[in-house]
């Protein structure tokens, strides 16, 4: 720094937003969703989100220290990964498994690739994908929303002893006398039993599901705030939602008795939180204008395909991971033409 001459490479024009400022605002935008999640699922959701955040930040800090580098937790990105991971896990998820998923998120999902800016995949989704493959039963165990006593006691599986299997939740649900809850999310009900859920309920979010994915309305509002602050690429969100809606509309028109309405597709499951907070991850999404649309459409179409024809009832996670993997390719194929340059073929013709 004592050198008086500063030599810098481009870019010389910088936006007003620094990395940590954007990240901080994303955290602000996630706060209402966390709050709603806690209101809906109670104490268990609170400790789940806190655990994920703490372990993610801790892993990042520890790994940086281990490599003898200055810690990078100050850029808030580990905190975002942690909060997001907490929001996309089921509220009853045992904390020790959430901690494992967090370590995988930051360790394998981000640091192995070289840290923020080098990760190919969205770290939170890497953690969730690992948990999905490792703990198949706990990650598909759902608890009802708005259960009474949710502020007085934890869901019994929350404090499962590390490395032990979570207890059966049925006695707990019976004790709480939760009637009519079958342990299925609206998506599972639709897929396996063709039972529709009220759109209003889905929109507001008083349904079973991952801790923070249920309220489409709230997620959309938070997304709008970020888009307004120009901290989120609204084109990605729009193309994900539009392609999912159009694609599911085609099937719905064909056979409304089996296939869900486009509105159901948009408001159910994790599509909204995936589109707004995961697909828009700046590191793992394309940068070209056309590429953004292609990327979003891949996510929308693949999600609907997995939901309608795959073995799983939810496919947002795999759709986004797949599109993440395709991002470098999309970027390469959609490089805009340099102003004034002519295509090679035309050149030959001329």
């Amino acid at each position: 720094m004592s050198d008086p001459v500063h030599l810098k490479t481009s870019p010389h024009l910088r936006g007003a937003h620094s990395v940590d400022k954007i990240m901080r605002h994303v955290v602000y935008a996630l706060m209402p969703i966390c709050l709603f999640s806690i209101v809906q699922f109670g104490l268990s959701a609170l400790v789940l989100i806190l655990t994920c955040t703490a372990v993610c930040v801790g892993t990042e800090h520890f790994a940086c220290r281990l490599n003898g580098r200055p810690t990078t937790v100050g850029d808030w990105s580990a905190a975002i990964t942690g909060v997001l991971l907490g929001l996309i896990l089921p509220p009853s998820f045992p904390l020790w498994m959430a901690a494992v998923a967090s370590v995988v998120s930051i360790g394998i999902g981000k640091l192995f690739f070289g840290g923020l800016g080098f990760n190919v995949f969205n770290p939170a989704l890497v953690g969730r994908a690992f948990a999905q493959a490792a703990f198949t039963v706990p990650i598909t165990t759902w608890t009802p929303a708005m259960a009474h006593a949710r502020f007085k006691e934890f869901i019994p599986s929350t404090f499962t002893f590390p490395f032990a299997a979570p207890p059966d939740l049925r006695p707990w649900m019976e004790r709480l006398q939760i009637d009519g809850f079958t342990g299925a999310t609206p998506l599972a009900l639709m897929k396996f039993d063709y039972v529709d859920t009220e759109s209003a309920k889905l929109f507001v979010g008083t349904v079973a599901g991952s801790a923070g994915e249920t309220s489409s309305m709230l997620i959309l509002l938070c997304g709008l705030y970020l888009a307004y602050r120009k901290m989120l690429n609204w084109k990605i969100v729009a193309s994900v939602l539009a392609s999912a809606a159009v694609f599911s509309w085609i099937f719905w028109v064909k056979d409304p008795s089996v296939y869900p309405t486009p509105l159901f597709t948009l408001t159910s499951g994790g599509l909204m939180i995936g589109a707004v907070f995961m697909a828009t991850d700046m590191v793992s999404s394309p940068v070209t204008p056309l590429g953004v649309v292609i990327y979003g459409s891949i996510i929308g179409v693949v999600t609907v395909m997995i939901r309608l024809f795959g073995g799983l009832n939810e496919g947002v996670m795999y759709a986004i991971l797949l599109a993440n993997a395709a991002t470098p390719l999309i970027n390469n194929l959609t490089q805009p033409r340099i102003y004034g340059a002519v295509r090679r073929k035309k050149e030959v013709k001329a």
Partner: protein
Amino acid sequence: MSAPEKMNLQTFTQGLWKENPVFVMMLGLCPVLAVTNTAMNALAMGLATTFVLICSGFLVSLLRKVIPKQVRIASYIIIIATFVTMADYLIQAISLEVYQALGAFIQLIVVNCIILGRAEAYASKNGPLKAVVNATGMGLGFTFALLCLGVVREVLGGGTLFGMQVMPDRFQPWSIFVLPPGGFFVLAFWLMLFAAFEERKQKKGVTA
């Protein structure tokens, strides 16, 4: 390696550690990832490969002066394929369960590059006894590597070892470890461990 050297302990231990086919040479990774979901499968696969390695090494070494250079690869492949077919029948005769668990990977021993590599690089240049000793070392090294993966994957993925319960009843199995991605994770973990170990040894060698 082509220089005729005297047979010593190195001939045998080479494959076990210093030139371990999986951890050092990274050969034959396809079965390493595919059939190590249980320790039993890993052991069966390792032994089948060892059998093929030893027998083909012996025969190639016996015929090394007869086989003209131009057709050597073709000859080696026929010899290897012969022993693989024999291994295939033998495993079926011993246990159909193991045979079904290993699936196509027994037949695929034919294209396992460790075996052709050994035939080409060692057996075709050394006497039968040396070839057999070396092949045994390599085979055991391969089996050892497979077992390293198989044991970790079975214990973590199912809480069992060779089909016997080793973890407490309440243990939550991490099913990812018996699924294909688990193979990659565990292999990476072992490679990391090996690399760290080697690095440490080298550092010590420098300071000493």
